[in-house]
């Protein structure tokens, strides 16, 4: 095989990989997008007690991805409303359990990013507890940079990967 055809083949494979990856791209539930914009429109926290069905229907509870700035674990203000309603859910349903899955973008050391993902998970856990959720209902797991939702090497993608996913393990 000569060099040119190998380059062509590589290019073809790369193109194919990108094309395929788009098709199978996972859409996180009620993704509010990673942009550092204004506070999104969220329904005010429901006055009554939450039930399991609200996880699928309530606009605020459906926000289950929290995004972070580069190398940061500080919660952005736009996610405060989501923290309040998820904390309320934990209070309303003491039997519910949640796993906070911390993630980082691909840059830098995988092991350091494992630490960074955990730090982000802990930041969300603290925010939920500050809003009245119980720490005993929350576990934090870090996947570091190992579970990207987007695999291109650019800031758009990296911003989507710097996240904590809220996963209810018991509703």
């Amino acid at each position, binding site marked *: 095989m000569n060099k040119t055809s190998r380059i062509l083949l590589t290019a073809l494979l790369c193109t194919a990989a*990108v094309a395929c990856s788009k098709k199978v791209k996972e859409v996180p539930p009620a993704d509010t997008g990673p942009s550092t914009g204004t506070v999104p429109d969220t329904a005010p926290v429901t006055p009554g007690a939450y039930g399991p069905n609200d996880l699928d229907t309530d606009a605020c509870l459906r926000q289950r991805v929290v995004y972070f700035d580069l*190398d940061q674990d500080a919660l952005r203000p736009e996610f405060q409303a989501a923290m309040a309603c998820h904390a309320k859910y934990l209070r309303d349903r003491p039997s519910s359990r949640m796993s906070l899955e911390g993630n980082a973008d691909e840059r830098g050391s995988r092991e350091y990013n494992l630490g960074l993902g955990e730090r982000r998970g802990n930041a969300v856990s603290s925010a939920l507890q500050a809003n009245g959720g119980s720490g005993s209902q929350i576990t934090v797991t870090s996947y570091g940079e190992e579970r990207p939702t987007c695999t291109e090497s650019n800031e758009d993608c990296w911003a989507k990967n710097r996240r904590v996913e809220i996963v209810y393990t018991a509703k």
Partner: protein
Amino acid sequence: MTRSLRLLASFLALLLPFAAIAQQQGLEIDIVGGNASALPIAVVPMPYQGSGAAPQTDVAGVIRADLDRSGQFRGLPEQSIVERPTRGSEIQYPTWRLLKQDFLVVGRVVDAGAGSYKVEYELFDVAKQERMLGFAMTARANAMRDVAHQIADAVYEKILGVRGAFWTRVAYVTATGRGANSRYALMVADADGYNPQTVVRSNLPLLSPSWSPDGRKLAYVSFEHNSNSSIYIQDLGTGARERVSSFRGINSAPSFSPDGRRLALTLSRSGNPEIYVMDLGSKALTQVTNQFGIDTEPTWSADGSTLYFTSDRGGRPQIYQASASGGGATRVTFQGSYNASATVSYDGKKIAVAQGAGNVYRIALLDRSLGSPRWSTLSPGSLDESPSFAPNASMVLYAAREGSRGVLYAVSADARVRQRLVLADGDVREPAWGPYRQQR
């Protein structure tokens, strides 16, 4: 043949073996750049002179490729080898002087009974017309590449005075598919990419393989237990494995001590990542760091007294060192805003790291063998990570991204020669160069 034609022929001859590798193994090896000061050496083809079936392995070809990859040697292409001596008495020195060769390796393969072969080889100094080495090695047909690597090691050591590291293995992680279809495999292969073997497969991420000093075991991180990180130690011979750490939080970054009796690791069971040392006999833990920041990626000094690790206690990740029994830490890296994933040479004089500046991450080398520490850059970036020294510190293996997939590179410690190892399918990452192998 005109000069340009001969150049073309030797260029093609260089490419041919790599194409063959790509077909056989799904691994592609490219040599990027060259070294003008490399020593010219002719490794003459070693014919089979027995009476049975000839071995499949081109012993001289494997030796030549090894020496080329080191960056220290420039092997004469096979097409330019006009005479084919197989023993010292057949050598006509003027020919090799005319070809401007400093060294000459000749040999032959003969039968050794019971399906085994014997390789008899000699190394000569062309200028002095002196024999420098002469040995015979016996092996079964399936171990002929091992024999060739050991000959390359002996030649390398005789000429350079440094032990060769061609007869070694590397561990790495491959990833294919995305999302729920992700598949991971921890692999072990010869240092030249041949003989890849699967150590373990998982649907969940695998990372951070670490070799035991005897090369018989790998410690690694897997997320298969409760979808959280755990550390396993697996015997490569039997496949038996043990989960040695699965505390709450992160269990990661395992690193065997030089005596193989302890494992440095990162645990966040106390609330944030700290370095610990586990006694592998009793599983007792000693906490090494106690700091608010992230402390991770411990790696041992050769004498086992010191741990180097990554910490962001000063704001951003930098390399620190501390006694393996605990106590205060000292910062090691002061150049670059981001330094992580340290690998330390066997003599402790060189440290390679992943060094970040903005969005560019390169492999950088800190040389402390002279008075003041000196930095050099080993890789072009932009997302290079996970450096790992060869056991003789002549080369550094690391992971890079090309497009949306990971590839491995091996770069000579003087940054002059880089070689790329690409897996045909999927991502390759987390390389770890194994120790010297021992005859069993």
